[in-house]
């Protein structure tokens, strides 16, 4: 059992501690699942590990098989972590005892956070040298480095050189040559320190990365649907509430340009210290995965591992997802089966969403028709004997479907629909999601702006060869809310809010979630264009109305003129008896019909 009361004998204060300082966010768990999983991979059983800098307590829990020493600058953090570590040293990097060696050193929050305000500044290079000195020959260093020219720089509303927060007592940016600013510089610095990189991962989106992807694979795999989906998801949720531009768009574009690693917000490097002279270690180090991805509401970490047949999924369920389901969980529209994913090959191909966006931008209607018809046919072709779609394919949306050689596959089939759905609703949900991305994202497309989201969905379905009605689209919105609520782990209230947001989305709205200045401006331009359209329409209608009113008045004048003439009056006098006679005849006919009616009760 862990308690907040620290065992005092485990906390060492060598001087240089910050007594009231905390780097661990209050009341919020940092998402460092991927880093913890990677750390667990590189830490052999029984190893002595130095965890330098602030880390999520969950990372220490994953290192239960090792003897962990924490090096922190903030005393309150030491108290928080003391119960989870064999020893906690609170002080600057100079607080480490000389001659003490570790098998693994983990600096997952970077080297800057290792330094205290107290004592002499060592700088990035000085801290690296100190930590390397604490590594035994052949030992492993796991290090996170922020990329000063990474995505964060391009989307941040705050200038990096004007930071005002309490950690900014010193700002080490790209101008500081002591700080490596790209992978090559990092490799050089590691080599100078006597370290050989074993692997380098692009870390999206920060030190508590949601995704760690092998940097070389990311650079090579420019059209990988897996990387496309992963970068998009990590960036869509991994930034502040207000940004300059859509980080997910930027990340996927960078991927396609081969810059997915170069523009990553940071890197995590696994490096080995040169072994001592003598016979080499017989035990080869554990192979590193291709990618580690934190997904789902429980923070499950999915790994992609390479084997001779290709890439495979490796699923590690976290403790959180193993907890018993809440009472309402049985009513969830979707559930996750990670075990079904474990060991399955990772499909190759391009992400359907990206292909559709590209075709829409190029106004390639033939391409759109081919892609959408293929998608619809692939969906309906998997319907059971009852005509319904069940399991994972019932949740197949354009952001989870890969296309390769005209064939369609689900990227991550771990999420399953709880009850079967009609193929029309599944198609409508997939297309409405895409329609929402297309219009709220401000993408150019071949259809008129006057279409609302449901209208565009029906049009897309038509291109896919299906004649959907709006009622099906409405049903798809309800399913969308229920499935998204399950995937995000929302409660009933959150699900209600989500549903009303989904129902009310308009083409002139910016995308939901993170607000980006660029997309807000685009939304404003769309609103302005829509306003221009409506103003022009109103003006045209006014003019038409005016001209028709004028014509009506002319007709009335003519009528009045005719009413006053002698011939009109004589004519009217002449036909009056005939009019009265016809009225009397009609009344007599009605009375006769009533009298002859067969069902008297109906008269009541």
């Amino acid at each position, binding site marked *: 059992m862990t308690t907040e009361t620290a065992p005092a004998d485990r906390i060492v204060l060598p001087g240089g501690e910050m*007594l009231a300082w905390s780097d661990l966010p209050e009341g919020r768990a940092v998402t460092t699942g991927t880093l913890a999983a990677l750390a667990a991979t590189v830490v052999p059983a029984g190893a002595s590990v130095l965890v330098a800098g602030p880390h999520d307590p969950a990372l220490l829990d994953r290192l239960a098989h090792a003897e962990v020493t924490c090096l922190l600058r903030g005393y309150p953090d030491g108290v928080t972590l003391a119960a989870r570590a064999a020893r906690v040293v609170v002080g600057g990097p100079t607080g480490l005892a000389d001659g003490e060696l570790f098998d693994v050193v983990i600096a997952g929050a970077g080297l800057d956070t290792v330094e205290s305000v107290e004592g002499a500044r060592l700088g990035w290079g000085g801290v690296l040298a100190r930590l390397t000195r604490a590594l035994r020959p052949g030992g492993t260093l796991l290090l996170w480095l922020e990329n000063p020219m990474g995505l964060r720089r391009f989307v941040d509303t705050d200038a990096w050189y004007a930071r005002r927060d*309490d950690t900014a*007592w010193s700002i080490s940016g790209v101008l500081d040559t002591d700080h490596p600013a790209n992978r090559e510089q990092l490799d050089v610095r590691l080599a100078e320190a006597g370290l050989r990189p074993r692997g380098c991962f692009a870390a999206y989106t920060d030190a508590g990365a949601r995704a760690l992807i092998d940097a070389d694979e990311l650079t090579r795999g420019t059209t990988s649907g897996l990387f496309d989906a992963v970068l998009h998801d990590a960036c869509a949720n991994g930034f502040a509430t207000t940004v300059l531009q859509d980080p997910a768009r930027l990340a996927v574009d960078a991927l396609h340009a081969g810059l997915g690693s170069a523009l990553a917000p940071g890197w995590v490097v696994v490096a080995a210290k040169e072994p001592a002279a003598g016979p080499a270690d017989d035990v080869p180090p554990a192979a590193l995965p291709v990618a580690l991805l934190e997904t789902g509401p429980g923070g499950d970490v999915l790994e992609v591992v390479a084997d001779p047949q290709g890439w495979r999924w490796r699923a590690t369920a976290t403790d959180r997802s193993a907890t018993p389901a809440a009472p309402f969980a049985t009513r969830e529209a979707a559930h996750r089966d990670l075990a079904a994913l474990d060991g399955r090959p990772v499909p190759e191909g391009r992400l359907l969403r990206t292909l559709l966006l590209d075709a829409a931008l190029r106004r390639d209607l033939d391409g759109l028709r081919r892609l959408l018809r293929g998608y619809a046919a692939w969906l309906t072709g998997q319907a059971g004997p009852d005509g319904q779609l069940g399991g994972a394919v019932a949740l197949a949306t354009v952001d989870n479907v890969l296309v390769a050689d005209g064939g369609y596959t689900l990227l991550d089939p771990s999420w399953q629909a709880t009850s079967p759905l009609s193929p029309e609703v599944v198609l409508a949900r997939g297309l409405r999601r895409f329609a929402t991305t297309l219009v709220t994202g401000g993408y150019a497309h071949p259809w008129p702006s006057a279409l609302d989201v449901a209208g565009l969905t029906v049009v897309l379905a038509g291109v896919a060869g299906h004649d959907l009605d709006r009622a099906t689209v409405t049903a798809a919105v309800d399913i969308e809310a229920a499935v998204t609520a399950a995937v995000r782990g929302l409660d009933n209230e959150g699900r209600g809010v989500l549903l009303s947001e989904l129902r009310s989305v308009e083409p002139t709205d910016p995308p939901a979630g993170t607000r980006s200045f660029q997309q807000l401006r685009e939304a404003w331009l769309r609103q302005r264009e829509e306003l221009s359209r409506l103003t022009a329409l109103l003006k045209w209608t006014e003019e038409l109305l005016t001209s028709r009113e004028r014509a009506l008045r002319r007709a009335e004048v003519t009528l009045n003129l005719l009413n006053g003439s002698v011939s009109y009056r004589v004519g009217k006098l002449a036909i009056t008896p005939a009019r009265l006679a016809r009225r009397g005849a009609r009344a007599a006919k009605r009375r006769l019909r009533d009298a002859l009616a067969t069902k008297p009760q109906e008269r009541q």
Partner: protein
Amino acid sequence: MHHANHFYGHAHVLARYAGLGDGHPPRINGYVQHGWNIGDGLAPGHPYAERTPSLLWSEQTRRRAWSVGRRNVAVIGAPFAYLLAMRPDDPPAEQREGTIWYPFHGWEGQHVHGDHKKLIALIRETEPGPVTVCLYWHEYGMRTVRRLYENAGFRVICHGYRGHWWKNTDPYFLDKQLIELRRHRRVASNRLTSAIFYGIAAGCEPAVYGDPMVLANEDPTFGGTARIRRQWPELHGPAVDLPTAAAIARDELGLDHRCTPAELRELLGWANLQEEPVDD
């Protein structure tokens, strides 16, 4: 001007250095750190207007102040550093003898707990030569305390009154202290304080030993004496390594951050004075 800027005649020293003469110093646009401390450089409990510049002694204090939320923090070095620049060899420190010992003091509102008699025995045991005990004016005025040290055969002095609310400030407090320090070979105290750093900068060998005499109601925010001993262990003990001590004192007094007179006038808001000179 915050009244603490006048403590120990700090504002007077800075005004003299800035070329404004010996008169009443003009208002300073900011708070000058008035003593070595392990917090944000400002005295706990004093009221301060937010974002008014803090003019601090050292880079380490500036980092610490920023980390606890202070902004507009600048390093100018200690007023003592300016005094050293004005009096680099005045008086010449040729005849150094014995030890100047500063028993730790609190200020008027604080009450020191501790045993002066035990301290006196320890000083006699440790110090090789004659001892001058410098008492804070508050204790100097307490006959019983003063007698204790006098009866032990120590010379008992007081550098003067640091002043309070601009009243009775001794503008030559620091000068007197510098003169006394240069007469002694060693400087010692039971706590690491400003006086020890001043002594090191004035060429004395430092020593910190004995019961640190904890203050009643001492503010533990920044860790108190325990933290001082953890962070500067090199400066504690009856004999310490002089080059190490000199380097630390250089950092803590910000000797390398001393401004030029014109620079200081700008930083203190003295470049375009509107006030009429006032005689003190």
